[in-house]
């Protein structure tokens, strides 16, 4: 029980830092920490496989991508202090209220979370069996999705012409 509260507070603090930190690189590292704390929650709930996948893919790779982009795009020229409109404030308060209402409904319905002890090592085997029988087609399709993403990324950013343009610009910046 102490873990619950500790992990929740940790995740909340890092999540708040993602939104409220001034520097975007700090926000990216806070996102990494948030994802790691979520992975720890998965771990504590007994879904160790998903925790490992979360760390490997989300925390390990996505956050790195963010940091690389931040180093690529010279962020110092963008300062994060533009004004916010009032209508957006109203929208945000409304959304908060609605979502909190939905969640209090869910919790009042007495959904009990099973304790992590109940899941034995056996469930991992059942999980994989399910993944490779019932969910085999989505599994294969996910590869196709990844292929599409790969092609898209290269076409958008990494085409030879684009890279050459980028490098020429870099050279100009260096010469200045």
């Amino acid at each position, binding site marked *: 029980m102490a*873990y619950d509260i500790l992990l929740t507070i940790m995740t909340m603090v890092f999540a708040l830092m993602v939104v409220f930190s001034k520097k975007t690189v700090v926000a990216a590292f806070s996102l990494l920490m948030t994802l790691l704390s979520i992975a*720890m929650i998965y*771990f*504590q709930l007994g879904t*160790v*496989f998903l925790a490992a*996948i979360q760390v*490997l*893919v989300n925390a*390990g*790779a*996505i956050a*790195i*991508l963010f940091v*690389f*982009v931040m*180093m*690529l*795009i*010279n*962020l*110092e020229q963008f300062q994060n202090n533009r004004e916010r409109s009032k209508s957006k404030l109203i929208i945000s308060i409304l959304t908060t209220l609605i979502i909190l209402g939905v969640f209090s409904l869910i919790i009042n319905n007495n959904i009990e979370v099973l304790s*992590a002890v109940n899941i034995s090592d056996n469930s991992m*085997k059942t999980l*994989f*069996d399910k*993944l*490779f*029988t019932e969910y*085999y087609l989505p*599994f*294969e399709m*996910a*590869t*196709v999705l*990844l*292929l599409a*993403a*790969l*092609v898209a*990324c*290269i076409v958008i*950013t*990494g*085409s*030879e012409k*684009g*890279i050459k343009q*980028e*490098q020429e*610009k*870099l050279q100009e*910046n260096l010469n200045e």
Partner: protein
Amino acid sequence: MEFLSFVIFLILATALGLILMFISNLLGQKKKTVRKNDIYESGVNPVGSATRQYDIKFFLTAILFLLFDVEIVFLLPWAIAYNNATNTGFLIAGFVFFMAVLLVGYIFVINSKALKWEE
């Protein structure tokens, strides 16, 4: 139980690092000079700032790593499931398709020269 051991390990590891850093902070001398606080740039005066734009190849490497890593992470549960499965033919057919898609993606990447670093 598992989680408890993990947490204790994490706490002890952090404590070790903190103690080491604290020791040198305590024992080392402190004498600040202007030159010591300067940016190190091989002895000459620093030019420009460090937050400049870097080569796009780094980003492309990271992005391709992300997508390939996801695919390879996919194969870990597959490798475990194969050894407990009875319908191995079905699993192998999926694997062949999977690998074909992966190789198509790989060949595309190599052909696009996105990872070709200048010599």
